[in-house]
């Protein structure tokens, strides 16, 4: 079977035909997908911020942003420009180095994690064989940054917020990792490409959501907690802690936190789509359909079509999950810190462990359906 469009291969081949050595051709290729991914992630954040404001408004029977651009689509851009031009204040008794390093440590790992998000068989920055593991390990750097920001601010609310953020991230990482582990066990690989490929072939029926209904819910709860979305937004609970670890931040440093939280939300939704909703797969198996109609899978137009459909499908699934998160935000009240830790340690952790064991048992007894 043909693996679809391969931009890197074609690009390197073209440069080689111009007489460039292969090493140089690959070096020329390298920054392109990374740059594209950073731009894509940032634009994705603008879209999510706009969506969040519009959907929130709709859920509360308001109109939301309307005057900045058509339907207010330029509102997040206006917000961003405002934050860029604001004065960058560092409190007098704060630790300037840690204060600056905090937001950087929060944002950089999130952007790095985009390395492993696939939009197609070859439409990925790099196909690491530890793919999903690198996402989990990178996401555990963020609490260090949050703690750093909270501690360096020299403010009791910021410190409390930072401590809460660290406690929350650490306790929800475990059920998250365990539910991912169940998926990994079924697909015998940590690579995101392999995880999607294992779900292909049967359209919507082959997606992991049917084989991992419990893992699916645990993952979404834990991902919401990791992103500090509303039922779990204690670290910045504005009614109690002013704004948590963000209290002393302004201008570009605050913008980094803001950006980081939304990039993280989109990233979690994308990873979720890859793990449970079949990544770039369409609802019906397209390659079988093409075979049935009698179109060879090396036909250029078919390849372009499947590739663009793959990107659209991945984004559509991710944005559906973002929509769900926003809807959840206006539905569920914020939990207390003890309820949060209770839910994490006493409910999600044992359930995800049981889920892992049951998956292992099913894998041994039904190797056909559970990737033996």
């Amino acid at each position, binding site marked *: 079977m043909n693996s679809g469009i391969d931009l890197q291969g074609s690009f390197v081949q073209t440069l080689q035909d111009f007489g460039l050595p292969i090493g140089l051709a690959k070096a020329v290729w390298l920054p392109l997908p990374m740059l594209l991914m950073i731009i894509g992630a940032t634009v994705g954040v603008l879209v999510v911020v706009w969506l969040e404001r519009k959907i929130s408004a*709709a859920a*509360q*029977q*308001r*109109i939301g942003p309307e005057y900045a651009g058509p339907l207010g689509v330029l509102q997040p851009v206006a917000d961003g420009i405002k934050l860029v031009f604001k004065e960058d204040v560092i409190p007098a008794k704060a630790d300037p180095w840690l204060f600056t390093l905090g937001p950087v440590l929060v944002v950089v790992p999130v952007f790095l994690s985009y390395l492993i998000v696939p939009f197609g068989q070859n439409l990925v920055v790099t196909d690491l064989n530890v793919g999903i593991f690198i996402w989990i390990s990178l996401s555990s750097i963020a609490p260090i940054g949050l703690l750093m920001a909270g501690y360096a601010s020299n403010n009791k609310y910021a410190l409390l917020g930072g401590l809460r953020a660290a406690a929350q991230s650490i306790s929800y990482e475990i059920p998250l990792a365990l539910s991912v582990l169940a998926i990994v066990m079924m697909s015998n690989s940590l690579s995101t490409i392999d995880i999607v490929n294992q779900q292909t072939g049967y359209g919507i029926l082959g997606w992991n959501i049917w084989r991992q209904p419990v893992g699916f819910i645990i993952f979404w709860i834990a991902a919401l907690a990791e992103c500090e979305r509303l039922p779990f937004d204690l670290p910045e609970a504005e009614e109690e802690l002013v704004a948590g670890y963000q209290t002393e931040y302004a201008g570009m440093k605050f913008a980094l936190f803001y950006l980081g939280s939304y990039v993280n939300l989109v990233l979690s939704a994308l990873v979720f789509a890859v793990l449970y909703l079949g990544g770039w797969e369409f609802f019906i198996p397209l390659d079988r359909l093409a075979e049935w109609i009698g179109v060879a899978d090396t036909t250029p137009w078919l390849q372009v079509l499947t590739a663009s459909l793959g990107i659209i499908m991945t984004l559509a699934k991710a944005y559906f999950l973002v929509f769900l998160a926003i*809807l959840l935000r206006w*539905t*569920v009240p914020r939990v207390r810190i003890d309820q949060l830790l209770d839910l994490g340690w006493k409910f999600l952790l044992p359930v995800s462990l049981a889920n892992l064991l049951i998956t292992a048992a099913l894998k041994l007894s039904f190797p056909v359906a559970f990737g033996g």
Partner: protein
Amino acid sequence: MFKILKQVQDYAQESWQAAKYIGQGLSVTFDHMQRRPITVQYPYEKLVPSERYRGRIHYEFDKCISCEVCVRVCPINLPVVDWEFDKVAKKKKLNHYSIDFGVCIFCGNCVEYCPTNCLSMTEEYELASYDRHELNYDSVALGRLPYKVTQDPMVTPFKEFAYLPKGVVEPHGLPKGAQRAGKRPEQILEEIEAAKPKEEAAKEG
């Protein structure tokens, strides 16, 4: 052995219930998304204040007899009535009258008790200014009539909730000439007038 099974069952049931309630909540939020926004986009759209609205106070200088009842009924003795006794005419002569709307709470006591009806409530509520001393209205400023929302060509006026037809909760897209639920004051008056001759006839007969 059975006790722990029962505990597991109860726990599972509780979790299922919690999930069910969250699902119900989500459906409510989702349902709200399809409803029309009730936003009145303020500078371009405004609500018509009701006839009993207690806005900025209007004052007619010529009607005032300087009796100072408004000062006595005011919770903080706010109106300033500057008069002197005209010995020739043997009457009070009013020089100045002012109310500071930065301090006024718009309770309407002065309007209620004014013996000559020289004080009245208007529907004006946009009193913002850059200096609080500008809120101290003298008799000239108090004598100005507010601009009506319905006459402003820049503004789309909307009716308030109580003035909408039965079953309508939102003023946008209301057909022109739509009446509120129940009888209008004119209609009630008409009915009373119509019933009068009958009553009189009944008395006589």
